[in-house]
């Protein structure tokens, strides 16, 4: 296998909810490479979640095509004991009638695993998010941050090639939020999954992602720019970080990219 290959890609995708002329997204092309952490940044209501659902296969594009190894429709999952794509919802979306462990196991049902296999893998995923002690608890007894950890565990347990996250920390308080961000960063560095992370928070995007893609304008909305970030540029106090934030703000507002990347990077952009 080559060092990098496309896990998921959209080619000139357009989407209108009624199939008619009222497009919410148009001419969107975006390729996710193996191991990337891409933040999809844009204002609320612009269609980020919709775009995520196209990647997930929950919505069919009105025009254009979806490709990549994780998204091709022959993704026959039964027997492989894993799913190629997994989604983390903004609202955790746990099933109140299932215990924490059973909620995580839900990701594994229908894959032909034995009861023990499901249990072991779900427990491993709970360990990954630090909740192995909470396996037998009911979701309603948990805090928002804990519930979202369960949602993350449910997605990780299916061992996906592509992890899609829909503003997963958007509804949390700032302290819980930043601890979950750090945890996600640690898990990503351990597992090197390809991640597409939807957010409307510029700082969150810059702190987590290797590449930030801006979806703005419209309707129909389109991709108005992107910035690649290296690990050592992630310090929020640094000038580079602030320059990037300013550029992203301009892209969201639909203005021309003011530039201002460090000279050693400007050639790439």
């Amino acid at each position, binding site marked *: 296998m080559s060092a990098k290959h496309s896990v998921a890609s959209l080619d000139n995708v357009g989407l209108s909810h009624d199939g008619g002329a009222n497009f919410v997204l148009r001419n969107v092309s975006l390729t996710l490479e193996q191991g990337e952490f891409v933040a999809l940044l844009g204002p609320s209501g612009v269609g980020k979640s919709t775009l995520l659902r196209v990647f997930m296969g929950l919505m069919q594009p009105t025009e254009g095509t979806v490709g990549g190894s994780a998204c091709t429709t022959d993704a026959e999952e039964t027997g492989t004991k894993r799913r190629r794509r997994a989604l983390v*919802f903004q609202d955790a*979306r746990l099933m109140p009638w299932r215990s924490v462990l059973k909620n995580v196991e839900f990701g594994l049902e229908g894959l032909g695993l034995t009861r023990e296999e499901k249990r072991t893998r779900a427990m491993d995923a709970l360990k990954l998010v630090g909740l192995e002690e909470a396996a037998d608890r009911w979701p309603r007894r948990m805090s928002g941050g804990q519930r979202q950890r369960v949602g993350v565990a449910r997605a990780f347990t299916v061992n996906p090639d592509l992890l899609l996250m829909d503003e997963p920390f958007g509804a949390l308080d700032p302290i819980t939020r930043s601890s979950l961000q750090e945890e996600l960063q640690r898990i990503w560095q351990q597992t090197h999954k390809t991640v597409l992370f939807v957010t409307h928070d510029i700082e969150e995007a810059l702190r987590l992602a290797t590449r930030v893609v801006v979806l703005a304008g419209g309707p129909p909305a389109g991709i108005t720019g992107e910035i690649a970030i290296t690990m050592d540029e992630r310090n929020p106090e640094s000038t580079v970080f602030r320059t990037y934030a300013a550029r992203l703000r301009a892209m969201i507002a639909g203005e021309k990219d003011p530039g201002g990347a460090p000279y050693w990077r400007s050639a790439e952009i």
Partner: protein
Amino acid sequence: MRDKVSFSTKWALGLIGLIVFFGGWEAAIRTGLLPSGMVPAPSSLGPAWLDEVRGGFWQQAILDSLHHYLLGLLIGSVLGAGLGILCGMVAVVDGLLEGIVRLLRPVPGLAWVPFAILWFGLNTSGATFVIAISVFWINFYAAHSAVRGVDPELYELAAAFGHGGFFGRLFKVVLPAASPGLMSGLRTGLGQGWMSVVAAELFGVPGIGARMMQASSLLATDVVVVYMLTMALLYAVTDFLFGFVRKRVLRWQP
């Protein structure tokens, strides 16, 4: 605002209420306030009950009625909840059945008795049919609204994890998510079933209802009341037993 009463006080109050009720009733008959020919004295109920037990009528009536009740309850609940779930999940079925449902719903169980006799005869099947119909509607409506009330976001969750098909949605989302509504439908049907036992047996199928009719035609009001209380007891027992099932199924609820 309601003032709070502890569990044991509540029980004691209920008991006092019953004692006052039966005591007042007895007193009213002894003082001649109530004509004894119209209403039996509570003190006559014990002997009347013993007579029924000695003759074996009481036991046989309960067995017969229990047979009708359980069979009617099973058929009515399964069909009612099943069709209610189907209508709640599939818009086309819901639309197709809407007119028919509106037409048949207001028909009381008793009105089906002529057809029960015609189609099934004066036997267990006829009585079962009448009970099943009244239980059917309760479960149909309970299931229908419970399924319509399922959070649509759970369907998206199921679809995201490979359970987007009809059976995936049914078993992974609808049945558990709608279980509180389904359970309350079953529970209401449990009570409604006992009420329709009388209607189902009025026309002569042996059981508690038939025994009551026989007794009332002989003006044996004490026997009628014995069977009224018997039915209340049977309902209390079934409701109590169902409470365990309900608690087990809904243990995730607060």
